[in-house]
């Protein structure tokens, strides 16, 4: 694959993601003001000093956006990674063992999926202590049900191949078969799905924060910022729209890259022909 063949939309997506990641990594150096520092009037207008204006407590929105990238990306990324590890391992165990193990895991998965995940998350988060690990874990477990479905489907296709049977005849254990024979052959669709689920995780986290069960104040996070400033909209103040737009832009960027990955991996000719 040559760099020239990558479409423009992907470059835009990659650039957007890169900016957000840099913001997240170097927030204290990039941000003009502190995360919780009150620097002016409540809902102060945008100016040369404060690029996006001030929020409901008089904090600089740009600074909070940059710091918020940190929590948003960290939580979304770890939740997605965790949900993938969990989903892939469970689904591959189901696909390689078949029989009642497959049946049991799949039905538990169906059971989890049948409960609307937002309501499920709200109930669980309301009862558990509110901290980051709990939040990440709850998001990961809920998301892993989707990964399980995809993982099982792709693994089933590979698990019936002769080379997997050959490994079994050699006497290899389930762990080897999962990680050495099946995983490398299912990686491309799973990677594409990873990008997609990452975007969903950002949205889900924002939703939870907006409802008050995600990241707790005064830490900045994009969804929480929308919630904090939503009342301003009534008075014609655009403070809530800025973090909202940030969420939208990041999601679109991730999706542009993912769409391209999906096109490359899901084509009929084994992913080589990218039209």
């Amino acid at each position, binding site marked *: *694959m*040559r760099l020239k063949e990558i479409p423009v939309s992907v470059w835009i997506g990659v650039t957007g993601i890169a900016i957000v990641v840099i913001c997240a990594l170097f927030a204290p150096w990039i941000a003009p003001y502190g995360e919780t520092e009150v620097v002016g009037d409540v809902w102060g207008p945008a100016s040369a000093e404060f690029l996006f204006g001030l929020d409901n407590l008089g904090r600089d929105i740009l600074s909070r956006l940059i710091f918020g990238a940190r929590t948003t990306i960290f939580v979304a990324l770890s939740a997605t990674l965790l949900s993938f590890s969990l989903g892939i391992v469970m689904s591959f165990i189901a696909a390689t063992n078949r029989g009642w193990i497959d049946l049991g895991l799949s039905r538990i998965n169906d059971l989890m999926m049948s409960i609307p995940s937002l309501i499920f998350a709200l109930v669980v988060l309301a009862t558990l202590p509110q901290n980051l690990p709990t939040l990440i874990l709850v998001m990961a477990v809920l998301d892993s049900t989707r990964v399980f479905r995809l993982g099982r489907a792709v693994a089933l296709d590979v698990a019936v*191949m*002769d*080379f997997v*049977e*050959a490994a*079994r*005849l*050699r*006497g*290899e254990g389930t762990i080897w078969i999962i990680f*050495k*024979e099946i995983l*490398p*052959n299912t990686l491309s669709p799973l990677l594409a799905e990873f990008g997609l689920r990452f975007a969903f995780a950002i949205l889900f986290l924002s939703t939870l924060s907006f409802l008050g069960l995600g990241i707790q104040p005064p830490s900045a996070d994009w969804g929480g910022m929308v919630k904090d400033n939503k009342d301003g909209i009534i008075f014609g103040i655009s403070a809530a729209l800025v973090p909202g737009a940030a969420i939208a832009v990041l999601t679109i960027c991730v999706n542009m890259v993912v769409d391209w990955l999906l096109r490359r991996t899901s084509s009929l000719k084994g992913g080589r022909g990218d039209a």
Partner: protein
Amino acid sequence: MPDLLEVKNLKIEATSYPPGEAPQRITIVENIDFTLQKGRVLGLIGESGAGKSTIGLAALAYGRGGVEITGGEVSLNGKDLLAMDRKQIRAVRGDRVCYVSQSAAASFNPAHRLGAQVIEATLLHKLMSKAEAEARATHLFDILGLPDPQNFGKRYPHQVSGGQLQRAMTAMALCSDPDLIVFDEPTTALDVTTQIDVLAAIKHAIEETDTAALYITHDLAVVAQISDDIMVLRDGGMVEYGTAAKIIENPSEVYTRELVNVRSIKHAEATEQSRKYFEMTGIHAAYIGGQKVLKDVSLHVPKGQTLAIVGESGSGKSTLARVATGLLPPLEGEVRIDGEALPKQLKQRSREQLRRMQLIYQMADTAMNPRQTVGQIIGRPVAFYEGLRGKERDRRVEELLESIEMGDGYMDRYPAELSGGQKQRVAIARALAAKPEIIICDEPTSALDPLVADGILHLLLNLQKKRQLSYIFITHDIAIVRAIADSVAVMYQGELVRFGPKSEVLAPPFDDYTDLLLKSVPEMRLGWLEEVLLTRKLESAGN
């Protein structure tokens, strides 16, 4: 007689896109000239990659996936097909020229009835009314020897056998009463016993309808039965072109002679066959929820000898391999190596027991993990059974590569970078890496070109001599059995109909099925097909 099809100086090219390099033009076919008259059949023969299908499709002015016809002339009834625009060429395809593909099972739409699909192209071209087309289809079903021609068209593709489906496809091609039909390996995917019926039906239908045909195949013995002329192709060029009689009886080129005399292996049968080294006794087996596929099968192989298991698809020969390896635990019966009974379940067998018996698959493509290098594929059993690591393991892998007559330059290649024959060799090396005592070969050569297959068989026999290996060789090809077996087991519908030393099994008096099987193997001489149809006692079960 005027020429129906005239191909002059045909040149076909494709563009390849090697990673990291500029696109390259590749010539696939060059300098092909031939003519074809009404009612005659031209056989195109060659190994895979010889360009035979590409030439066949050129008669429809069609290039598959990125292939372009860049030079020469293809004229049908004096009109140049290559000069036509899209609309004109569409009017010719399916009307004047039709195509019969290799795998009828994959070419029919499973959601529609056969009859509707057979007459579809004819109706599309508005050649006949629906009633006329249906009448013609019924007539063609009759000519092609399909059962109950009146109602055959009402069936769905999954309701008929593979051989019948291939004949239905021939009916589809004949329906519009075309001038020319291109047959692309129509019998390759069928059993020998079924192939003979399809072959006879196609030949009969061509004679009845007085159509011209291009018949593409890799099997010279098949093409000899059906063709008037034969063109031998190799690497996109013509090797020899002449009448069938001349090519078969008096070939002038070295390559043609090789093709005619393929399967030159002679293997003297072992004299002492009573010592039971590997043994299966009283095996009954069934898949979950299914009927019994094996009924009371008992056989054995002495050390260092080859047992060939023959039978058509569905006869249970592959199931026997699954029972032997423990993938399918038998309902009854025992599997023993050197007197030691093996547990029925794969999971209960020890690593040592697994090591002693290895399996070689029919499709080397799917039998190897495409994401592992040759070194990893062969190295894993070495590490797994002997615990060798690092340099020691690499040395063993090199030795194994040498023993399959491939250099160590292949260590870091991926399976996709190997040819079909090389892939099968690597699969053999993987089996050898376990230092097995018995190897079950499940049709290891049936997906390969005859000359390549010959090489693989030679290799297997040499390895057997050197390492005292026992083989259970599953095949449907009697010619291979004759070449390499010491003892033979004939399977028919899950039962063992004959078992014993090769010289006894393949000598008369025959039971009906063995008679059919032996007679169905195409022989490299003219007039063989007619002779067999007159003398056989039984029709194929899969027919």
